[in-house]
């Protein structure tokens, strides 16, 4: 992506905000998020865990109501929610100022593209979600730049995750598919790691695919993107060596998760690997605060399927379709490595 639409260049790999004031404002929003997720969260966690018996983690409305009214928790909740609202509002506004030029820079919209799944929501409070606006990919990219608090400005966090993904034991990696690739940061990292492989990124949202293609082209990375829901994979049976899904399953209904796993099992060849990075189900039982935080994210940060996913025994679902499933959980993050 180059030309008049990006007059102020890039911040990391994201298109810079249109004005200096917008960029400065978003620096402040990033700082606010850092305060909410740092010191304010620490205070809230301490108070929440002290407010209930940690030996018997209660769940449900009574526990949530008791924790939510603690002053430190209500402050954390409000500051985090406010920072999210400010983030999306200003990121959308800054690109809106140059909408026509930026839309012209995007890869052309695909005609005859499949319909967007009805379950898609305005995840993380992004207005219109991943699919509701042509500039959603740009907005999402800068929004997540702030989400990462500067730790992924040059895709370094995504690249590190991709570097840690286990390859099939036989070392054969001819085709790689990333499910729900969004703007393709991991997809391009996979191509850097497996240079000879055919690397695909799929996502149900057309704005994400258009931006992902534009971004990869600007980077000079030869990857392929397709607008496609993960539960409707168009790859042939046993044709793929490695499938990767990062933070997908907590954003789909449990029934859709079941269909996705079936599809991945179908397209993976024997010995192929399905690697899933997502939220750690142990979060529901680790502590009162941990359980509350996931509930809050579900209900107040527009993650409508998160809580149900965490309680769904995702490992058992994988176990019904793969011969070997390894689980590793640490804090809020978890990884399942399933071998076909």
């Amino acid at each position, binding site marked *: 992506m180059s030309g008049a639409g990006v007059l102020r260049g890039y911040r*990391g790999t994201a298109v810079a905000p249109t004005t200096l*004031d917008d960029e400065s404002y978003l620096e402040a929003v990033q700082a*606010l998020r850092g305060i909410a997720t740092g010191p304010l969260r620490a*205070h809230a966690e301490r108070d929440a865990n002290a407010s209930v018996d940690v030996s018997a983690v209660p769940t449900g409305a009574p526990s949530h109501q008791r924790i939510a009214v603690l002053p430190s928790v209500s*402050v954390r909740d*409000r500051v985090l929610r*406010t920072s999210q609202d*400010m983030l999306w509002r200003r990121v959308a506004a800054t690109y809106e100022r140059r909408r026509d030029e930026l839309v012209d820079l995007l890869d052309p919209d695909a005609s005859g593209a499949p319909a967007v799944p009805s379950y898609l929501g305005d995840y993380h409070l992004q207005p219109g979600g991943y699919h509701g606006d042509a500039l959603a990919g740009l907005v999402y990219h800068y929004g997540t730049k702030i989400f990462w608090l500067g730790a992924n400005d040059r895709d370094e966090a995504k690249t590190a995750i991709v570097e840690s993904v286990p390859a099939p034991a036989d070392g054969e990696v001819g085709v790689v598919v990333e499910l729900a690739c969004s703007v393709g940061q991991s997809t391009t990292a996979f191509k850097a790691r497996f240079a000879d492989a055919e690397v695909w990124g799929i996502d149900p949202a057309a704005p994400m695919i258009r931006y992902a293609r534009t971004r990869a082209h600007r980077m000079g990375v030869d990857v392929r993107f397709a607008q496609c829901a993960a539960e409707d994979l168009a790859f042939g049976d046993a044709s793929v060596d490695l499938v990767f899904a990062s933070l997908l399953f907590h954003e789909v209904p449990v029934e859709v998760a079941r269909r996705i796993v079936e599809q991945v099992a179908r397209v993976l060849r024997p010995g192929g690997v399905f690697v899933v990075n997502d939220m750690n189900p142990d979060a529901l039982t680790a502590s009162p605060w941990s359980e509350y935080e996931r509930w809050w994210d579900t209900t107040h940060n527009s993650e409508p399927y998160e809580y149900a996913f965490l309680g769904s025994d995702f490992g058992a679902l994988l176990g019904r379709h793969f011969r070997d499933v390894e689980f590793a959980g640490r804090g809020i993050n978890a990884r399942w490595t399933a071998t076909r």
Partner: protein
Amino acid sequence: MSVADPADPADPVQPPAFVEPAELPVFVEPPLLDAVVQVLAELAAELWTVKRRLDLTEQELVALGGRPLDEIPIGDAEASRSAAAAREFLDGIFRAFTAAAEVEHP
């Protein structure tokens, strides 16, 4: 004319003892909290925006060279320094807020 006795807690003339913000049990009710946080956050962000303009480095001003302010070619390193400075700036503004959230509760 009488003189109030500062040692007498019942004396209505006696000024109230100063209460540290961190000692306030509940400083605002949730509906008001929403409004306070939103106003404070917006104010802090706008203040930083103004400060950012005032803090433009000499190099940036030279690079500006008469072009519109919004075409300043700020590099990643400068952007990173600015983001860190923004955090320090907002930390100061929100310090009292954070202190209020540190209140111990039964």
